[in-house]
């Protein structure tokens, strides 16, 4: 068994997993000035799902998502479902890395071929993933406070350029658009954390501590995302914000606080690091699935599976390159993604119902056994 991680490390990793792409990519939804509301709707929708995650961690403590599949559906069907989720992990990694490479390509290295940026990102992801979960989560616990501080400082420094009328009127005049945006925000990124259940085997969650990780993780992420979205709306205004691919980057670039200006490099660094961390982490989650499918010994460390990581890296690189032709098609892709990823994201509901039935049956059996004894 690989070394364990603490609950705090898991929590920080979950938050970074959720917020990684959003600080820069918040201008894609139709809700316009109600975008922040769309995120709150997504939060409300995600809340029961996260309660289900935490319940699953209580019923199956120290068992990864793939092991839960095996327990509930049997060996072979469990492995087939695990295979689907491995592909989903690789998909998430590909999206994350592609977003990072697209960002670099658009805002700074516009003449560098994207495939080159993509490969550089993948080399980093490969290296980070092979270092193991402890390295990643230790980095997450170090990186998240920096992220939060930067967001806070960004708010303070933007106060003099806030235009509070940008957010008015606070009425929902286009309910279908807000709900549609809420749905996209739910699928990307909030419900993506279904794959995060795979790290259960590394964290102690038997006494309901899973609830703390998942609920606090969701709440902290939503607070960060909503505050960033509000900042973008107040600084840029709706017409500008909805036209930009990377509104947060632009909003930070407008900060003019005496001698402090041109801070967009900070947002670039945050986006870059968090995006690559999510990519690496998703690659690692796929690796956990691989180990489970092929019954590899848990004790063996990730460095013993370098070829598997390399294969995953190549797959992610190819998938990332062909995911969508250019940033122009990204919005359409996100809507398509929100449709095909939804069954996978809502599948834990089925897991939970079956798990509860089995759990109650086992409990009754135990009660009967103890009575007869």
């Amino acid at each position: 068994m690989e070394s364990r991680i603490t609950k705090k490390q898991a929590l920080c990793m979950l938050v970074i997993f959720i917020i990684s792409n959003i600080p820069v990519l918040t201008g894609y939804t139709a809700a316009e000035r109600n975008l922040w509301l769309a995120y709150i709707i997504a939060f409300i929708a995600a809340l029961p799902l996260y309660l289900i995650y935490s319940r699953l961690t209580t019923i199956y403590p120290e068992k990864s998502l793939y092991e839960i599949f095996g327990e509930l559906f049997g060996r072979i069907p469990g492995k087939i479902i695990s295979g689907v989720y491995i592909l989903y992990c690789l998909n998430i990694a590909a999206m994350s890395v592609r977003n990072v490479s697209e960002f670099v390509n658009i805002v700074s290295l516009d003449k560098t071929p994207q495939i080159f940026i993509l490969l550089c990102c993948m080399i980093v992801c490969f290296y980070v993933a092979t270092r193991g979960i402890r390295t990643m989560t230790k980095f997450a616990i170090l990186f998240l406070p920096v992220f939060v501080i930067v967001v806070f400082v960004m708010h303070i420094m933007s106060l003099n350029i806030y235009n509070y009328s940008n957010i008015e009127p606070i009425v929902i005049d286009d309910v279908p658009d807000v709900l549609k945006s809420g749905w996209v925000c739910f699928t990307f990124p909030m419900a993506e954390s279904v794959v995060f259940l795979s790290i259960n085997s590394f964290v102690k969650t038997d006494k309901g501590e899973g609830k703390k990780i998942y609920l606090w993780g969701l709440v902290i992420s939503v607070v960060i995302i909503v505050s960033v979205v509000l900042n973008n709306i107040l600084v840029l205004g709706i017409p500008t914000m909805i036209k930009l691919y990377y509104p947060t980057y632009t909003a930070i670039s407008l900060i003019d606080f005496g001698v402090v200006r041109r801070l967009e490099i900070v947002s670039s660094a945050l986006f870059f690091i968090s995006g690559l961390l999510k990519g690496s982490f998703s690659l690692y989650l796929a690796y956990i699935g691989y180990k489970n499918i092929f019954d590899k010994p848990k004790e063996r460390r990730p460095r013993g599976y370098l070829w598997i990581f390399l294969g995953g890296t190549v797959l992610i690189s190819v998938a990332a390159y062909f995911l969508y032709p250019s940033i122009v098609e990204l919005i359409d892709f996100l809507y398509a993604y929100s449709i095909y990823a939804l069954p996978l994201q809502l599948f834990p509901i089925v897991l939970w119902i079956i798990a509860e039935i089995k759990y109650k049956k086992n409990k009754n059996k135990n009660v009967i056994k103890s009575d007869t004894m």
Partner: protein
Amino acid sequence: MKKKICLVLILFLIILLLCGCFNYSDIEDTVVVSGLAVDMCDDGQYKVTAEIMSAGSDNEVAVETEQKSEYGFTVFEAIENLKNSSGKSFNFRHCQVIFISEQISNDGISDIIDFAFHYSGFRLSMVLTVISGNDAASVFECEKLLYDTVSYGVFDMMKQDQIANSKCPSAQIYMCLNSLENKGKEMIIPMISVEEQEGEGKEYRFTGMSIYIDDVQTGTLSVEQSQLFMIFMGKTMNGELTYNFDENYASFEIKDLSVSREVEENLSVFDLNIDMIISVRQLPEGVDVSDDEQRTKLEEELSARIKEEINDLFLYVRDTYGSDIFGLGNQIYHVNPSAWAEISDEWKELFKDVELNIDVSCKINDAGRSSKNIVPNRR
């Protein structure tokens, strides 16, 4: 041993990557642009002039500037032609201002805003400025007063004005885009003129602002009107007011401003309340502001004058240009979106019938070092 060989090979490979991008350009092949001027030619082509900064010659620590112009049917084509004809790569990340000729402003500037918004080489914090009368490129012929480049001089002049006098509105690219697309608010852009000074060459001067309907300039406001507009919008941070009291000039400094606007139910009458805290900088002769009665009288007189001027400005803009630069339509949208949806298409016509009730309240809070006038002993 194998590991060491691999390490050495990797280190050699890294050397190849550390040399930079394959399509890099050296610093001596890059020119830094501080400002752009866009003019329209008779054949419908844009003439784009770039103010280029370069390091001083002969080991002097100084910045020298030169101008380079090119033509194109779009601004982008002209910029690409600039790059091609000079053989250098252009860095626009330090470009602060885009000067636009009044002719383009009269024809419509949405093309320029659209290009500036999309072109990733530009920063969205760049400021648009209209050059009154002359060609936009003529601004680069001005004397560089205290600054190395004209563009930076103009940019700092406007920035300083916003802090100290609040007469000059801000027109960054993203603000212009918001004004173009926002509901019920028209665009405004500061205006400067290039004037020939006897024996001193050309000088630039802030002369007010140009006002638009959609993206077409419909009129201009003077510096004084511009200042009143900023007070109307509540964007005045500081500023001086000078008035003539019976052949005596007196100056006041605005210390604090609070503006509130309300729209009445019929959506055609607005109430504007302005609360102003001011300091006396030069007292009218014979006035003693330490005396309650005299101070109140002065405050009332000031309030009445400001009210009259703001009302005149509003009527002038409404009746002469019909441009809702005050954002009254936008306010209706904020207060009552459903009502706005019904009237938004006819707002340009409805704006001409809008009434404004103004209430100005000035409070004098200090008079500098002394509240008493100097009384010269004229024997």
